[in-house]
């Protein structure tokens, strides 16, 4: 079976599991929503909230991503399915890209809802001029987060204390996504001092990040998973 076919198969399986278990809706989304509300309480200034809303949305996304990544690998490790996939000779690249794609889709849904929450809670404004930039930056950031989340999720899945190890390893690595996505979103929403052109430069960073982790993950995921199994 080709890696591309495995990618589609694994992504469809992961999304079906998510639809069945509704972890994103029942656990991740309430967690993200509470985080957004607490940000509003902590800052408590409308002008300031409007200005920092892009960063808060992406921070909430990163924190929520930790739950999604852990869940994504808990379903694999629970009954030894990931080990069984590798023992069965299923291509590691297909598993990696499939899980990353499913993760990216879930993050996109989460980001959409978080942006909607930001418009309601923080009174953020959006005139529509930067809609293409906003969508592109969200897509690029989600792909990057999906790829790096899958790589580090695979790395920590067989280790003791993985719940605390994953954030320690992952959060520093996703800092470029936080910075790039926040700047691009600021440009798209017209807050801060970032022009639309600068926003596209940050999107280029996000795309480069996703490409680097896509290449690195496709090479390293198999050996990492095999070694930690």
């Amino acid at each position: 079976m080709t890696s591309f076919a495995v990618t589609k198969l694994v992504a469809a399986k992961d999304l079906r599991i998510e639809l069945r278990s509704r972890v994103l809706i029942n656990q991740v989304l309430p967690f993200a929503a509470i985080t957004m509300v607490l940000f509003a309480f902590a800052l408590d200034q409308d002008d300031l909230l409007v200005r920092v809303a892009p960063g808060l949305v992406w921070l909430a996304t990163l924190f929520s991503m930790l739950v999604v990544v852990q869940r994504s690998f808990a379903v694999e490790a629970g009954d030894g399915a990931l080990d069984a996939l590798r023992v069965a000779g299923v291509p590691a690249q297909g598993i990696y890209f499939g899980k990353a794609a499913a993760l990216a889709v879930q993050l996109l849904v989460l980001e959409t809802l978080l942006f909607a929450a930001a418009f309601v809670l923080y009174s953020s404004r959006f005139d529509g001029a930067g809609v293409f930039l906003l969508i592109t930056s969200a897509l690029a950031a989600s792909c990057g987060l999906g790829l790096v989340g899958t790589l580090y999720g695979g790395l920590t899945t067989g280790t003791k204390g993985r719940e605390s190890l994953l954030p320690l390893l992952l959060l520093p690595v996703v800092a470029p996504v936080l910075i790039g996505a926040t700047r691009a979103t600021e440009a798209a929403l017209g807050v801060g001092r970032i022009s639309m052109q600068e926003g596209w430069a940050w999107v280029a960073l996000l795309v480069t990040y996703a490409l680097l982790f896509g290449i690195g993950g496709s090479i390293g995921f198999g050996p990492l998973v095999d070694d930690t199994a």
Partner: protein
Amino acid sequence: MVLGLDLVEQREAVRSRVGLLGHSNGLYTDLTITENVAFWGATVGASAEEVSAAVERMGLAGRLSDVPVRKLSAGQRRRTALACLIARRAELWLLDEPHAGLDAAGRDELDTVLRAATAAGAMMIVASHEMERAGALATRMVEVAGGQIRGQIRGQESGTP
């Protein structure tokens, strides 16, 4: 050599033709029996008919096939895992303590399934501490210690699997 392939040089090719069932079943507990078997069958391009046949052969057809794995008994989960091996068209089954965690009825049920699978052409290597139960299934038995064959208990070597 395993199944005519070099285990060192052609490891991935060997893996795709070998089915391993250890202490865990390799199932997704949020998915139904049919969805699990279909997933594993799809990794080798199995058709919907092959998946249905595997589910039926393990006695999991009917209403049970749409039950999520998390709601199944240990014996039913074991049968689902074996259905996945059938759907994967595994030629050599490696079973590590397949009776572990099963009650007496579940063990008898599993033995029936394994006999049916071997009768249908599958080849099996079973690792077990339960000599009597494994002996009733086996055509050849060896004692293994430290990764080495220490002694022949029954049967004769008839070539590589």
